[in-house]
């Protein structure tokens, strides 16, 4: 369970998060939605300890994460931009991350198969296309069996086939009872894989509930329209 209490974060004069309170129970798939620059990535990075909040606390299973690093063993993270050392080969990168995680059991071959990455294993990362890099990124995020998975824009650069593969993987992780936090702008993708949505607007949580709740509240049958409605209301 992740508990976020009154998180504030500003970069210079730019106040990004203005008091976010949130509880993410175990075994839920939650989508983090919001317009560009609303603070989605900042919130995600605060949970990972990459961004240090000005105020407020974050607890992972009732333990404060401040200044800790071992708690990240429980988290698998997919960063928004996939960029790796250009001189390394794909197989070496995977081996290296496994080594860094200290010999945790990893299931990389399954995901290499799923994303058909075999032909690229001995290529250098600098020579890969953006989409292929994103697939490598996804393999790195899913190969460990951590209870919490955080995905920041997982769909970017993927072809339709890989997108379907990704959906299946996420649904499989849900069945395993994992906690997922996904940020995305592709509404159909969010609707297909997430139970709950959380809408961030101007540094605060504007809506937090199930997709059905959202549709009911906005009187819209269609998820995309419901989100648009939410945005319009937020602007008003």
């Amino acid at each position, binding site marked *: 369970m992740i508990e976020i209490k009154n998180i504030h974060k500003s970069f210079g004069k730019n106040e990004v998060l203005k008091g976010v309170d949130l509880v993410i129970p175990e075994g839920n798939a939650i989508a983090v939605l919001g317009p560009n620059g609303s603070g989605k990535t900042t919130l995600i990075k605060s949970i*990972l300890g990459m961004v*240090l909040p000005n105020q407020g606390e974050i607890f992972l299973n009732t333990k404060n994460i401040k200044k800790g*690093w071992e708690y*990240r063993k429980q988290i698998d993270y997919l960063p928004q*931009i996939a*960029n790796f*050392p250009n*001189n390394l080969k794909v197989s070496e990168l995977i081996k290296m991350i496994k*080594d860094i*995680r200290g010999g945790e059991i990893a299931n990389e071959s399954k995901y290499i198969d799923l994303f058909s990455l075999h032909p690229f294993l001995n290529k250098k990362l600098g020579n890969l296309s953006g989409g292929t890099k994103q697939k490598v990124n996804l393999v790195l995020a899913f190969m460990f069996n951590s209870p919490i998975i955080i995905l920041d824009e997982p769909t970017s650069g993927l072809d339709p086939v890989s997108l379907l593969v990704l959906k299946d993987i996420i649904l499989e992780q849900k069945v395993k009872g994992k906690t997922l936090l996904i940020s995305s702008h592709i509404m159909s993708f969010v609707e297909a894989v997430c139970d709950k949505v959380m809408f961030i607007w101007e540094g605060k949580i504007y809506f937090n509930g199930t997709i059905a709740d959202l549709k009911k509240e906005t009187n819209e049958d269609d998820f995309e329209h419901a989100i648009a409605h939410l945005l319009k209301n937020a602007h008003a």
Partner: protein
Amino acid sequence: MLKILKYSFYDLIRSRWSYVYFAFYLLLGFVLLFLNNDVSKAVITLMNVIIILVPLMGTMFGIMYFYNSKEFTELLLAQPLKRTSIFIGQYLGVATSLSLSLILGLGIPFLVYGIFKSEAILDFSLLLVTGGFLTFIFTAISFYIGLSNENRIKGFGYAILFWLFMAVIYDGLFLISLILFEEYPLDTFSLIASMANPIDLSRILILLKLDISALMGYTGAVFQKFFGTSWGLIVSLGVLFLWVLIPVLLIRRKALKKDF
């Protein structure tokens, strides 16, 4: 930290630039030895090259590596690793591989030439030691500049300016102040001023080991009295070590406070 060091090191020793850097020293070593046929003179010429080039390469490689591995660093930051071990590990990886290029590149030609039979072995090892120190110092400072500046252009600018200041401008200011205050006793001042710049310190350390301090007049005698003794050598190496330690501590402090 050792794991990060290992991977940064591997990453660098496989890059083309490390080989170019290595090959450059190899060529320089061979050319100087066979043109000079005098190890002592070769050491002086090498010193003049090393004292300027090593800090420049440390600065450039350091800042380039830092900015190029930014996204990868973010990937590491999300892993169960301590922040400080990521940055210190990367720094040590860069500095070690650069030092290795320097030591192997110059060491091989001198071994071939037969340095162990020559009396210049001590001068030569001092040259390599100071070269190593300068690499570690300037790489650390460029890492710190990189950490403090999100903007790459600014970071590059500050790093190059710092090198230029230490390698060129500092000496100019030093000389001007010596001329301006020539009526005052300047021994202590010049001793301290040369300690405050690792490039000057390395240069004086090597020059005095080569016994050409007589060329430097009275100040040379003062310097010889201080740097020429083993006490002076220990103090100088201590100061060089401080020049490594302080930027590393600054990197540590910055890394703990920064958002990524």
